């Protein structure tokens, strides 16, 4: 079939470039391999040139692939599955990036992009290490390129192309039409992903992942060439850079989860988080071993091991998150694409390369003949490295249970599989000790020296500063125990270790690093680590659900108790609810596009329950899908203080709010009774009574958006329950919209479970009343009065500034309002302003009325000669003044929200500590890079 309107060229070009990119990566790797093997020989130079050329071609081809895919997304070519699944016509442009790397192919391209950027920098700056390093990097690129190849070898498909056509990936009757393209539209991006975190988090994280390949490649190069010491210097800034960026990427993930998602925290020990954290830990362990090796020559073997394992763990993490194997244990959603086998091959190849090199070349790795002394920095640093290694092993082991299950099931199909009972408690229990040891070691090791030969001389300084750190940490621990609630001695241990790290490293900064800020990297990082531990203690141990009202919930459910069971509180609209430490009131909500935003006011109360005067309003929201058929996201709103945050999100809503279909059914099932009332009347219903206060032509309603040409009217009522004199106001309304019809907007009085609405009968009565009017002519000059049905009608003045709800000013109008004051026999008075108007040489008039007396006025004419106005006045018959109103009692309430509110003490310490840690790493990276550049120059 010949399809109409398809754009096949960008896909064909893209696919060609994918193949070119893959082939050139292979060629680059092969050429660089021989350039390394033939280094120093004439043909080596040739291989090097070929490798460079191939890598540049690979880079350009990959950029071309990215460009082609981007082109397809920007132009919304829905004939491509990738565009159809991820963008839509109404998707704002800035989210095209998010749509690009949302799927596996896009994120592989992003990863590849960073490899290419890093590769080009290496090509320019790595000197003689270029060949071996880029040989490895290009090999990795070939593997990544194979993931998006989309080539078939018989039944087996190698990679999944991002350029697949929708009609090839899906089987639907619509593709039997040649013009199917004009019938379909894109799915769009999940609203959860339509935020700036999705724009900045993936590129940062993937730069982090990509940069771990550089230390890996240097390690391979070192083993390969046998120059075990020489690669250490150029590789160090890369490793530091990688740790800084990968750390930043992970931190952004945590911040995203905390700020924009309703996870209720920044870290949940979710497998996806764990598998990105573990490579960072091994990388940091590697950096410490690296520093030992650079300064003393010890532990080069560990440097190799850690850098090699780090990249393999990055690949393992990729496998876990992309193969769908974590299905039962992670809250994250994955799209499984059948790349599992290819990913295993990728891991296998790089793991085999690492193991083989270590096995074959490991014997030649040099080490000093003497052991390090116990009083030296390298000894305690190495102990720290082992602690980090433990941490990595523990997390990986627990996270890999699903992989283990699968492996065992392969051999024993009836194996049921193991899982962690409570992952968070498990990880916290063990990682706490990692925190304690690392905290203490950072403080101690910082004050020791490399290759200590004069321990007795240094001992005095060391003892003095350890004393400062111990005393300082002790005092601060005692003080902090007042701020935080501690539940076990282990928590005190962690608190002390954190304080020790902070004090010892701050002391070090003051004594040494202030002279040279560039040297401050390590002390800054370690101090940051201490602060991070403090923040974790605060947020983890003292995270408090304040959204509970034990009072209100008590006894409702049998056997319920304990704080963790009381995390949500129901807030009725406008009904203040006492919760822990606050009073929360759900004030109202507004709907804009697909987002419904709720206003919740918090007023702080002291221990006696009195208001402290402090109050704030939070705006959590929920997002509906494009068809308003369900809620797809609940976005939190957080009040930030220096020492704590108050985090809130909507955990549930009335079913009528979640499901419009249900809401319609519910509305239909409500029984309304009809009552009639004139202005000023009181209506008695079964349980309540209402006073009809007023009638307006300019009504307001939360769901009413006035449009030109609307004819609207509304009532103002107050409803009372029989035993409560506090009234609830209600303002139902009705409007006629040209060509669309009449719409009624009911008023809800949640507290009385009452619903009040107007019907077309109400409208008809108003129109009938108008038709039945018998107007009498009154002639008045400005300032004159005349009697009418016992009332006095006084023409105050004529007004050229016309403010009548039904008056739309037009060019050429000649409009004037008669300002009338009507005085009743009981000498109460009211003002009306009917309008006389000449439009297109035709006289028109707009009436006005005193609804409570049933008086209607029209301004019919002006006699310019005598300056006399013709006013028509009428009094409506009693029975026609009464307006039918429909009232339902026992209407189900849908004016509440279920809110979760959590206090996070010390959350800012988490951010500050992490940022200091990364800043320290970045500072060190920059410092080492500068040293290295000076050397080259």
């Amino acid at each position, binding site marked *: 079939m010949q399809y109409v309107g398809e754009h096949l060229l960008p896909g064909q070009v893209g696919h060609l470039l994918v193949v070119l990119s893959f082939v050139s990566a292979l060629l680059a790797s092969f050429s660089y391999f021989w350039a390394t093997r033939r280094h120093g020989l004439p043909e080596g130079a040739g291989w090097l040139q070929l490798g460079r050329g191939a890598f540049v071609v690979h880079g350009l081809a990959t950029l071309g692939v990215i460009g082609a895919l981007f082109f397809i997304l920007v132009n919304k070519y829905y004939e491509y599955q990738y565009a159809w699944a991820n963008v839509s016509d109404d998707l704002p442009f800035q989210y095209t990036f998010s749509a690009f790397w949302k799927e596996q192919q896009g994120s592989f391209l992003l990863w590849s992009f960073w490899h290419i950027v890093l590769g080009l920098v290496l090509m320019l700056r790595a000197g003689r290490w270029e060949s071996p390093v880029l040989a490895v990097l290009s090999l990795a690129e070939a593997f990544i390129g194979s993931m998006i190849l989309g080539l078939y070898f018989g039944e087996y498909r190698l990679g999944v192309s991002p350029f697949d056509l929708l009609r090839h990936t899906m089987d639907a009757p*619509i593709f039997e039409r040649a013009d199917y393209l004009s019938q379909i539209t894109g799915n769009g991006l999940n609203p959860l992903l339509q935020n700036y975190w999705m724009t900045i988090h993936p590129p940062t994280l993937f730069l982090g992942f990509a940069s771990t390949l550089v230390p890996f490649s240097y390690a391979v190069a070192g083993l390969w060439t046998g120059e075990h010491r020489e690669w250490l210097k150029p590789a160090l800034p890369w490793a530091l850079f990688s740790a800084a960026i990968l750390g930043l990427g992970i931190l952004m993930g945590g911040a995203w989860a905390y700020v924009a998602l309703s996870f209720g925290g920044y870290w949940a020990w979710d497998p996806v988080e764990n598998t990105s954290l573990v490579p960072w830990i091994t990388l940091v362990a590697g950096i410490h071993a690296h520093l030992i090796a650079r300064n003393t020559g010890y532990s080069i073997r560990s440097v190799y091991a850690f850098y090699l394992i780090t990249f393999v763990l990055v690949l393992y993490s990729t496998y876990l998150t992309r193969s769908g194997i974590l299905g039962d244990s992670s809250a994250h959603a994955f799209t499984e694409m059948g790349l599992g086998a290819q990913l295993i091959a990728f891991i296998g190849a790089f793991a085999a390369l690492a193991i083989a090199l270590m096995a074959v070349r490991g014997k030649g790795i040099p080490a000093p003949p003497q052991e390090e002394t116990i009083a030296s920095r390298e000894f305690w640093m190495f102990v720290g490295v082992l602690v980090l290694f433990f941490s990595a092993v523990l997390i990986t082991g627990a996270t890999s249970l699903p992989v283990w299950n699968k492996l065992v099931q392969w051999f024993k199909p009836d194996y049921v599989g193991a899982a962690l009972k409570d992952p968070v408690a498990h990880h916290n229990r063990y990682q706490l000790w990692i925190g304690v040891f690392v905290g203490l070691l950072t403080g101690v090791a910082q004050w020791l020296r490399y290759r200590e030969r004069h321990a007795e001389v240094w001992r005095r300084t060391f003892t003095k500063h350890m004393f400062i750190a111990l005393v300082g940490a002790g005092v601060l621990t005692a003080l902090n125990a007042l701020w935080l609630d501690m539940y076990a001695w282990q928590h005190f241990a962690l608190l002390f270790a954190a304080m020790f790290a902070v004090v010892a490293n701050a002391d070090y900064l003051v004594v040494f690093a202030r002279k040279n800020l560039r040297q401050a990297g390590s002390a800054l990082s370690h101090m940051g680590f201490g602060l991070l531990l403090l923040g974790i203690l605060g947020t983890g141990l003292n995270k408090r659900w304040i959204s509970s009202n034990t009072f209100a919930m008590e006894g409702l459910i049998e056997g319920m108790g304990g704080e963790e069971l009381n995390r949500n509180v129901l807030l009725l609209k406008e009904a203040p609810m006492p919760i822990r430490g606050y009073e929360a009131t759900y004030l109202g909500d507004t709907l804009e596009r697909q987002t419904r935003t709720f206003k919740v006011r918090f007023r702080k109360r002291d221990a006696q329950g009195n208001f402290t005067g402090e109050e704030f309003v939070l705006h959590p929201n929920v997002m509906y899908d494009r068809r308003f058929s369900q809620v797809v996201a609940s976005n939190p709103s957080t009040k930030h203080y220096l020492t704590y945050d108050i985090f809130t999100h909507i955990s549930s809503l009335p079913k009528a709010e979640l499901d419009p279909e249900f809401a319609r059914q519910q509305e239909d099932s409500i029984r309304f009774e009809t009552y009639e009332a004139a202005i000023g009347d009181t209506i008695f219903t079964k349980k309540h009574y209402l006073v009809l206060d007023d009638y307006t032509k300019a009504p307001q309603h939360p769901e009413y958006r006035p449009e030109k040409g609307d004819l609207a009217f509304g009532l103002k009522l107050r409803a009372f329950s029989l035993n409560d004199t506090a009234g609830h106001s209600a303002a139902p309304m009705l409007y006629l919209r040209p060509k669309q019809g009449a719409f009624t907007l009911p008023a809800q009085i949640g507290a009385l479970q009452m619903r009040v609405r107007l019907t077309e009968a109400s409208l008809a009565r108003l129109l009938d009343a108008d038709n039945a009017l018998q107007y009498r002519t009154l002639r008045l000059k400005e300032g004159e009065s005349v009697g009418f049905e016992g009332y006095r009608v006084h023409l105050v003045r004529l007004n050229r500034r016309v403010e009548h709800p039904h008056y739309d000013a037009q060019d050429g109008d000649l409009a004037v309002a008669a300002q009338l004051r009507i005085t009743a026999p009981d000498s109460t008075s009211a003002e009306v302003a009917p309008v006389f108007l000449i439009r297109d040489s035709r006289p028109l008039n707009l009436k006005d009325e005193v609804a409570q007396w049933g008086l209607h006025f029209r301004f019919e004419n002006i006699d310019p000669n005598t300056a006399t106005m013709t006013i028509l006045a009428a009094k409506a018959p009693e029975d026609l003044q009464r307006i039918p109103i429909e009232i339902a009692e026992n209407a189900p309430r849908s004016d509440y929200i279920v809110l979760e509110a959590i206090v996070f003490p010390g959350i800012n310490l988490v951010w500050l500590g992490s940022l200091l840690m990364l800043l320290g790493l970045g500072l060190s990276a920059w410092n080492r890079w500068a040293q290295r550049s000076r050397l080259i120059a």
Partner: protein
Amino acid sequence: MKRSHLIAITVIAVAIGILISASQDVTTYANFAQAAEKGDRVKLVGQLVKDRPIAYDPEKDPNYLAFYLRDDAGEVRQVVLRAGKPQDFERSEQIVLTGQMRGEVFEASDMLLKCPSKYKDEEIYVRSEKQ
């Protein structure tokens, strides 16, 4: 003995110790019958029974959710979770629970929903305005 050997022995000893103690944190997957038999906390995978009532009345208690679940063996039991009802609960294709049997009811402390369609809606929207 060299110091490095001492360290190696310590490391191995600690590792074994941790492994033994950590194994207590591990539980197995089970269905309702096995959970009742074990009496201990287990992981349980199943599907929401959509034609049985889902009890969640936030006006009474926003922290009480009860529903029926069909396990791998096809057995249907009531599950009680002391938490709010997640927004896309009814749409879940698979539910992973952690908890234990108490009498006839499975009391869950943790629930994980799998809604693959959350990120991918395999449905073609037909443009109505163009027809």
